């Protein structure tokens, strides 16, 4: 009876997984064929699959340049996120006047959509002289409130006695973060890396607004440009989508164990 119930549960879970993966499979299948995605009747298996659509994407537009831009911006975002968020998260584990107000401001800022603040963000970036630059592209995502709370939760989970011992040993606050807290918060770091990378990688509106030079554009903008250049490109278009998606999926798969642990930790101890 127990075995039957387990079998049914696993079958249901497998069915749900298959349903959720079907769109990804369909994108991949379309990318390796030249079938129209709306073709009727739909074929589950690809006919005459090939990889030449990926070659077309690589050469028809400056894909390597977009890839490099996206990688640079995402690397900047990830590195700065870990640094700034760890510092902010550590500060929020301390007691200080108006801490509650600061937390409330942080939480309420999370409710404001980025689109609502995009004009001030543009003006600030312009005043800083960072328009059309990698740092300007990364600027709005250099620190994210969600990840600050992830670090706060992770740091609060570290026994206070460890921090006290480090302080007695003469470590400064910076070194306590670097030597004690960060090595014990790998799940929070992985969560931060995954979230920051994916948000930065997929950003479309901000790069669209602040880049003037086509050589500074990132992959999502390249996708839009590719779409406007070519017609009848079902296969190549989806090949492009796969090539844009692949790095974020790769980063997620690399960090998934710690990512899930980091999110759970944030959920239960935040």
């Amino acid at each position, binding site marked *: 009876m127990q075995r039957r119930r387990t079998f049914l549960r696993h079958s249901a879970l497998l069915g749900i997984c298959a349903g959720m993966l079907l769109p990804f499979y369909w994108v991949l299948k379309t990318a390796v064929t030249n079938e129209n995605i709306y073709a009727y009747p739909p074929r589950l298996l690809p006919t005459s699959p*090939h990889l030449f659509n990926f*070659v*077309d994407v690589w*050469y028809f537009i400056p894909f390597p340049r977009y890839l490099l831009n996206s990688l640079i911006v995402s690397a900047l975002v990830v590195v700065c996120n870990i640094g700034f968020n760890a510092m902010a998260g550590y500060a929020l584990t301390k007691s200080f006047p108006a801490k509650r107000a600061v937390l409330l401001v942080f939480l309420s800022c999370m409710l404001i959509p980025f689109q609502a603040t995009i004009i001030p963000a543009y003006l600030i970036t312009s005043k800083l002289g960072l328009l059309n630059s990698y740092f300007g592209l990364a600027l709005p995502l250099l620190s994210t409130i969600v990840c600050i709370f992830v670090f706060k939760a992770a740091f609060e989970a570290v026994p206070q006695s460890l921090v006290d011992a480090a302080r007695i040993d003469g470590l400064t606050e910076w070194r306590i973060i670097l030597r004690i807290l960060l090595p014990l918060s790998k799940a929070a770091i992985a969560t931060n890396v995954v979230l920051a990378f994916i948000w930065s990688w997929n950003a479309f509106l901000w790069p669209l607004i602040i880049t003037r030079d086509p050589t500074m554009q990132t992959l999502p903008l390249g996708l839009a440009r590719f779409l406007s250049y*070519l*017609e009848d490109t079902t296969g190549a278009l989806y090949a492009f989508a796969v090539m844009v998606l692949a790095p974020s999926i790769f980063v997620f798969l*690399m960090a998934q164990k710690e990512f899930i642990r980091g999110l759970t930790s944030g959920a239960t101890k935040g």
Partner: protein
Amino acid sequence: MPHWSKSRWVIVPLIIAVVVLAWNGYVALHAGGDVEGRVVDAAGRPVPDATVILLERHFVMHNERQRTHTNSSGYFRFSGNDNHSLQLEAEATGLGRSERRVVRLWFRAQNVRLSEPLQFAGRLP
């Protein structure tokens, strides 16, 4: 071996870097831009002095890029191709035009030799 070197964050990017370097090395060694093949009639006999046209793809159109002629063995060769998506077509007096052959390359300027010759529907007299 230090502990960090066994991390997947080191090993996987290292493997990717090696694959990318190896691929680029292969590309550098095989990107001469040579396209060669043969032209035959319906009976499989080589067609000498046929004109072979190389068209290259530009987004949605194919534009003529080069022309050459076959030698006495029906052999032709283009050099200096720098595209990755080509079409080849042959024409000869009395035989008309061959079918247009799509040639997809893995990288720009890849050296390629057609496995099947361009074939006319007609026969040489």
